[in-house]
């Protein structure tokens, strides 16, 4: 009896505590609605961001374009055909599970008109400096390849990732333009 009690009581105590904590967490989970938080951006939010990177845009809509590229998350075209914004992701310092997401605007000739970083899980204060408008300005007007744009000291990985993202977007622009700008 003594032996059985020695084993049973601790087991039961730990089980009861674990179950209680699990129940309380389940209640919190439902009450806060954490499960319903969508990981990405909605199309409406993207359109809003896209309008900031194509300055001359009249009315932006999401283009019905399937690229087959996993890193191209969406294409937003202007009904006035002034430009196109590509929603892309690129792997930075935070790793593959939480990539940097950006919307990159192009004019008809394929020159960058603006960039907005919509998700930046990089180190606060270091990698997040790629979001600075002052830095993103360096990309404006660049076309063909972004290799000439400087990276940021102390944020080398994040800014190199952004540069790779812009280069990827430039390649994608070539593929997309015939369809959405014609």
């Amino acid at each position, binding site marked *: 009896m003594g032996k059985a009690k020695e084993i049973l*009581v*601790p*087991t039961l*105590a*730990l089980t009861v*505590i*674990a179950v209680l*904590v699990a129940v*309380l*967490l389940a209640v*919190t*989970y439902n009450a*806060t*609605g*954490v499960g319903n*938080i969508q990981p990405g951006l909605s199309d409406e939010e993207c359109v809003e961001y896209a309008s900031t990177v194509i300055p001359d845009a009249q009315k932006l809509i999401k283009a019905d374009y399937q690229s087959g590229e996993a890193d191209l998350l969406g294409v937003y075209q202007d009904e006035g055909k002034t430009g196109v914004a590509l929603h892309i992701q690129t792997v930075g310092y*935070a790793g593959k599970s939480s990539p940097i997401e950006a919307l990159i605007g192009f004019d008809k000739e394929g020159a960058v008109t603006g960039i907005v970083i919509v998700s930046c*899980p990089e*180190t*606060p*204060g*270091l990698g997040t400096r790629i979001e600075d408008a002052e830095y993103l300005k360096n990309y404006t007007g660049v076309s063909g390849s972004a290799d000439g744009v400087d990276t940021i*000291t*102390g944020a080398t990985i994040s800014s190199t990732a952004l540069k790779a993202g812009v280069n990827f977007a430039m390649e994608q622009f070539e593929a997309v333009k015939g369809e959405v700008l014609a």
Partner: protein
Amino acid sequence: MSNFKTFSKGILEENPVLVMLLGTCPTLATTTLASTGVGMGLATTFVLVCSNIVISMLKRVIPKEVRLPCFIVVIAGFVTFVSFILQAYIPDLYDSLGIFLSLIVVNCIILGRAEMFASKNKVGASALDGLGMGLGFTLALFVIGSCREILGFGSWLGISFEDLLGFWPEPMLFFITPAGGFFVFGVVIAVVNLIMRAKNRKPKEKIGCEGCPHKAECTKQEGGCDAC
């Protein structure tokens, strides 16, 4: 020990980070900006107070053999609770704390207080102890974060000195890097030791029972310091 002493010892005298040198990992990782340091500190304080209260209440229910798993389950429960709340209502802070939020579970300050204090003292005293230790942790993160942000970014709590004053020397990026973190950490510990010396409290000069901040607690229990 008076209630006030129970509360205040965590702020300076037994500061978990600067005197006991616990929780160094989150201290260095979340202090690149003063604001993330404070966010981390407050999240930890909340978990510390709650877990101290619950563990103190359950101290007679929890069998000795499984006390550590029980403490961890309670602590993990509160950490998950905090992360749900932050994710739902303060997503910016949730993003900036990242993995370190869930790592509060294994923060040795919390388990340390559960084992050293809450499992041996009354609920009220445990809550005060948790609050004091938590605020001491928050204060340490705030001071280290402020130094690193001011020197490394030329800003404080997100306010740039250059915008404010019109001029400011080029910030020293070194202080944002891990090496700079260790440097600031060491200097702050030295300053705390100086303060303690000025207050005529003998600073800990050697590691061992005499220098251990837990001495008063340890010597009370069976086996004394050796059991510590």
